[in-house]
């Protein structure tokens, strides 16, 4: 290795000396930036946050993976980049049965895999069998539980897959039968857990249910999305290129997308400033003001997600007896001045959360909103038998190590102490330790966040049903469960909205979760990027994006001039 590199790298060692001389003479010359070159060649450079664990749509669960997978694969429907409405994808149209439970999708004749094979209904059936098979242990299998028999099959209670609600009556007809006529089903299909995988390729390079299957490597992979995988250099970059066999090939304008798994936001920001990235994943909080003043590249957009505190109310577990009383939990919620937190602590344009479901698509509005009412909170606390906070054992707030979480926890700590007289300590843990504590319900109050998978309030309320993997508070209300499940059958009507409002009302009355703020997405983007629209899910379908070489250069903060 060393001999190979010697000739080139010796040169690179001479470079600094040479360049230093150049600098003294004062004739430093700038080369064209990657971004400027990319604008000409339609090559998009994207800061993608982290290294994907895999590119198999059925074997991942993260956001960086999502960005790449939605370039490589396509599901039955896609999303409109502005309003998130369902757009035909592999399915050119679909019909719904009168009871709203059976969807029949007609696949387009020209939907093909990148090896030229047509995408068939059977591909979907086989893919759904794989993701639900307990042997494969797919992390996102739960997303498909809306299908008849899917949950039973995944949990091993049903072994005959023909009884699961997905059929391929014809090569281009796919029939999916649901447990209930959930109006959010079509919206769910945007998620990669519903994408097809090329089973022929999967079985060619390994065993069907083997997670170590190398079919997703650049030399093996076959995909059906607007792009194909060209290069995957782990921890360095992933390159996808335009797929000439994609059915909507004419709409795709980018030639390549380069994904950089840069996990340090500071490194990412420097790369952006040097013109190496068209868009970043995040912005360091310390640089936000400088970018705000400089002008053109900072975006702060509402995000369909909520930052909240879980309260352990399980009568069996949890070490704080006071938290088992609904009055105490409600008093904690009412005594948090959320406006002060978003304005003075976070300062990133976040919205104070007076409900659990963020305002969002479909115009859903929470009926029984929380308010800031320290007086009412004190009264509730007294009613619960703790006047002036006397007798409430010290409450511990579990957070994972991060500046923002600490700052919010300190603000809440001060508010609970001042308004309620309750002693609070902050328990700061490393990420996995924190997750384990939360999942084992070994906490009193725990910082949490939830981002929707699909544009519907159900994505927020569904997780609080009894025994849900993401409930983790001990909240178990048969009435709530029934409202959520019944709302699936209520169609997209005012009746359904009423049921969801009632369910959220139950949640806020019992307060196993204390909402604090609604997330925003903060990132940097060059103004040469076109076709990229703000939306609640932070989902920017690649096929609509293009680069404008004639865009005026962006104004960036210059070191020493940021005030």
């Amino acid at each position, binding site marked *: 290795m060393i001999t190979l590199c010697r000739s080139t790298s010796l040169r*690179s060692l001479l470079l600094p000396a040479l360049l230093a001389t150049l600098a003294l003479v004062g004739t430093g010359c700038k080369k064209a930036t990657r971004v400027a070159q990319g604008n000409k060649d339609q090559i998009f450079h994207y800061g993608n946050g982290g290294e994907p664990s895999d590119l198999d749509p059925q074997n991942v669960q993260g956001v960086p993976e999502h960005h790449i997978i939605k370039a490589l694969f396509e599901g039955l429907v896609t999303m409109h980049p502005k309003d998130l409405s369902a757009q035909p994808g592999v399915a050119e149209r679909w019909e719904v049965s009168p009871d709203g439970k059976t969807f029949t999708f007609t696949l387009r004749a020209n939907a093909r895999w990148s090896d030229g094979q047509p995408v068939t209904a059977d591909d979907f059936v086989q893919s759904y069998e794989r993701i639900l098979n307990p042997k494969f242990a797919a992390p996102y299998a739960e997303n498909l539980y809306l299908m008849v028999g899917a949950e039973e099959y995944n949990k091993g209670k049903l072994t005959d897959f023909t009884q699961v609600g997905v059929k391929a009556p014809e090569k281009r007809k796919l029939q999916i039968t649901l447990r209930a006529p959930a109006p959010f089903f079509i919206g769910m299909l945007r998620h990669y857990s519903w994408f097809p995988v090329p089973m022929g390729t999967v079985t060619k390079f390994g065993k069907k249910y083997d997670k170590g299957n190398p079919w997703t490597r650049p030399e093996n992979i076959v995909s059906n999305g607007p792009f194909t995988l060209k290069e995957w250099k782990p921890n*360095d970059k992933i390159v996808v290129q335009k797929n000439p066999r994609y059915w909507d090939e004419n709409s795709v304008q980018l030639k390549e997308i380069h994904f950089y798994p840069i996990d*340090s936001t500071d490194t990412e920001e420097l790369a952006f400033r040097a013109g190496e990235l068209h868009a970043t994943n995040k912005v360091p909080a310390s640089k936000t003001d400088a970018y705000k003043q400089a002008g053109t590249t900072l975006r702060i957009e509402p995000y369909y997600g909520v930052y909240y505190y879980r309260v352990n109310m399980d009568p069996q577990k949890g070490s704080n007896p006071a938290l088992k009383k609904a009055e105490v939990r409600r008093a904690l919620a009412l005594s948090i001045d959320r406006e002060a937190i978003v304005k003075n602590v976070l300062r990133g344009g976040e919205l104070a959360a007076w409900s659990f479901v963020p305002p969002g698509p479909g115009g859903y509005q929470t009926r029984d909103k929380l308010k800031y009412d320290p007086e009412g909170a004190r009264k509730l606390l007294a009613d619960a038998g703790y006047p002036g906070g006397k007798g409430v054992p010290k409450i511990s707030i579990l957070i994972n190590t991060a500046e923002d979480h600490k700052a919010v926890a300190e603000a809440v700590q001060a508010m609970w102490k001042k308004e309620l007289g309750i002693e609070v300590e902050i328990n700061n843990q490393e990420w996995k330790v924190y997750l*384990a504590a939360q999942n084992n319900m070994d906490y009193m109050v725990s910082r949490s966040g939830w981002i929707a998978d699909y544009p519907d309030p159900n994505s927020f309320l569904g997780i609080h049903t009894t025994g849900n993997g993401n409930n983790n508070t001990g909240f178990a209300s048969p009435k709530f469960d029934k409202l959520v499940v019944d709302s699936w059958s209520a169609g997209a009507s005012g009746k359904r909205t009423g049921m969801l409002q009632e369910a959220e009302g139950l949640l806020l009355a019992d307060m196993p979760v204390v909402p604090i703020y609604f997330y925003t997405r903060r990132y940097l983007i060059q103004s040469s990027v076109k076709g990229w629209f703000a939306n609640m899910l932070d989902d920017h379908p690649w096929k609509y994006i293009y680069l404008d070489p004639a865009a005026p250069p962006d104004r960036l903060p210059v070191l020493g001039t940021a005030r």
Partner: protein
Amino acid sequence: MLKFIASRLVQTVGVVWLVATLTFVLVRFAPGSPFDQERNVSPEIKANMEKRYGLDQPVWKQYVNYFGPLIAHGDFGPSFKYSNRTVTEIIGDALPISFEMGFWALLVALTLGVGAGVLASLRRNTALDWLPMSLSLVGISVPIFVVGPLLIVTFSIHLGWFNVNGWNEPADRVLPSLTLGFYYAAYFARLTRGGMLEVLSQDFIRTARAKGASEGRVVLRHALRGGVLPVVSFLGPALAGIVTGSFTIETIFHIPGLGRYFIQAALNRDYTLVMGTVILFASLIGLLNLLADVLLAWLNPRVKLD
């Protein structure tokens, strides 16, 4: 000599095995599993995943299952996090990059460090002594995560000469190697100066000068050999540090080396990748220290290896 090397190798194997066993036990008892995610999965799915990777077995059985294939055919197993790649592949991809960066950094460190140290010792208590020694104090004191971004801001952003990140073009090697090299150069400079001053005051140097040897010959031929001994004894740990401890550099410059995997593996509870990197680093540290000892004996006849 051979006996010494053989016995040290046996010791190294023992130490590595001990470290590996301890690590194996520690990671399994650390809270949190590879499958704890922010989006929690249902207990059934989690149980399936644990079964898939054999984590439902008792620890002693997991130990046998891990070390069996490792000893039999050097198989480090699949990564838990990067599921379509094996630990052997990950190390195979990343180690050469870490080695290459280490090589250039060491070259920078030795050239600058030893050069500055020799110069300082010869021009004691003059500007040529104070300047490099003050600089080396700065080099030791200012952390890498300050020097790195400063170099980036100057040379990449203002002057536009280098890429901010990546490891693709030959020029991408310059800033990371300089950043890492400066840090060790500072140590080497101080060690060399100290060593040289000690040697230069000894009788055999006076004898050499009395015999009329040129100053260059005195310094390079007679003094340097003894003067760099402290550097050589520091070389073992420094080499190991340069190769394994480059996490900060790799993060700042976005380099796909092994240091990032090492840290990420621990944070992800990627059991097999933690084991693979720990075994590798333990072996490297053992071997590099052995190498430094052998080199020391070769340079200094007073050191006997037995």
